[in-house]
């Protein structure tokens, strides 16, 4: 069994388009033995989407969960700049809708205090937050977190399980930023399959804090899975990365 902690339904704006795009992801996942896909829809892909767009994206994920109840675990995307709406979406999608986690992208940095209500609610519910991060030489988006921002978030919320997205984007520097915080994990999604990065993450964080994720459709299952299968790891380390750690993080949804 493999669990993909980081996937998007597609680039489409309407559910019909997303269903078609996601069908291809399901086939690729099936090909590689990926059992569960954690799916988040980043509203309309604007940096700080309005509540209506956030809700529409989450509705699409809820629909895809209903289409594929044995394959899809939804992650509720929220914009912390709209705090009341973010908390209401978590109630609607996680508490009532059965989603397994929360997704934060680039609306505001992890170090921004506006993230705190979301992080506290995630801890209360026992669900992980998947937080985008990158050390982008060209500066990136205005609200884009660096790994140091995510580390600050983890320090303020030690009881919140956080998965920092994009190992390759974090690089050596990012891994050292997050290493001191045991509630903070890294997913291997995004970025090109640069050799040695998975081994480095295991060395600096321990295999228990490294999680398989693809960022599909932006990245392919093959390229991402190749990172884990080619890395010099023990069988136990590989199993932790491919499903053991995600299963633990998703225990509210998957059970113990």
């Amino acid at each position: 069994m493999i669990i993909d902690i980081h996937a998007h339904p597609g680039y489409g704006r309407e559910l019909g388009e997303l269903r078609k795009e996601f069908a291809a992801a399901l086939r690729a996942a099936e090909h590689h033995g990926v059992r569960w896909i954690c799916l988040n829809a980043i509203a309309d892909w604007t940096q700080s989407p309005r509540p209506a767009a956030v809700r529409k994206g989450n509705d699409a994920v809820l629909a895809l969960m209903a289409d594929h109840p044995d394959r899809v675990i939804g992650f509720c995307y929220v914009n912390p700049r709209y705090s009341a709406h973010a908390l209401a979406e978590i109630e609607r999608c996680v508490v009532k809708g059965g989603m397994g986690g929360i997704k934060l992208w680039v609306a505001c940095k992890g170090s921004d205090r506006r993230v705190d209500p979301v992080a506290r609610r995630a801890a209360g519910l026992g669900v992980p937050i998947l937080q985008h991060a990158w050390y982008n030489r060209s500066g990136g988006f205005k609200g884009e977190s660096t790994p140091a921002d995510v580390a600050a978030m983890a320090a303020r919320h030690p009881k919140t399980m956080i998965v920092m997205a994009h190992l390759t984007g974090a690089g050596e520097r990012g891994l050292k930023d997050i290493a001191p915080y045991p509630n903070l994990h890294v997913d291997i999604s995004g970025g090109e399959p640069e050799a040695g990065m998975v081994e480095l993450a295991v060395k600096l964080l321990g295999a228990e804090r490294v999680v398989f994720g693809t960022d599909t459709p932006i990245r392919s299952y093959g390229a991402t899975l190749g990172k884990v299968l080619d890395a010099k790891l023990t069988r136990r380390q590989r199993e932790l990365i491919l499903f053991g750690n995600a299963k633990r993080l998703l225990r509210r949804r998957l059970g113990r």
Partner: protein
Amino acid sequence: MTRVDVSAFLGRWPFRPIEGTVANLARMMRANDIAHALLSAFEGLFYADPEPANEELLSKIAGRKGMWAAPIINLRVADWGEQMAHLARNRQVRAYRLASTFHGYEVGLCAEAAREAARLRRALMVQVRLEDERHLSPILSLPPASVKAIVEIAAAVPRAKLVISAARLPELLGAAEKVKRLRNLWFDMSHFDGLECMRQACDAVGAKRLLFSTSWPFFYARSAVLKVEEAEVTAPARRDISASSARRIFALR
């Protein structure tokens, strides 16, 4: 399925502890069923004159079955043509690699090298990039080489066999209409990514224009293998990508 890897490297990458040696290359080739690998030296990307890096590469792989060379040529170095001619005397040299952004010249200059490579009956690989521009070392300024400009060179020098190395899928898609009309241009697929990337590339330019490549040891080789394996393409298309086209282009037996 036996594969031909048209783009791999030996030597040390200067910014992280990555090293391609003959021994770990041989292991990688066995593990991924790669019968032939076309190799360049990392150091050649960074030396002003790649000649010593090429010599070292050729000495390392001399007589090694399935290991072929694509020495790096810097068109800023006055004797680049002589270097190409000298290298052509070595039967393991099956191509040359140009890395215009690493060596600081306009990719348009590659046209002259394409003519020379054609005269010497060798293919010419043009490197678009190696590393994601978002996390290059601060000491580097390496904008990607223009894929469209390389396509123009292929059109202008029809006798040359050109391989565009390390382009991304959107760059291929942006040039697809022109690429389809050319018979002397191919893409290595090491930097293609995204859901259905290989099927999209096949739909855009045809499988015969696509060449399996790993960019090992910079990339995990298995990633390239799995990208081709997961592609929803026909078995003949998979064979073309994996080996058949490369065997013809680089005369590998």
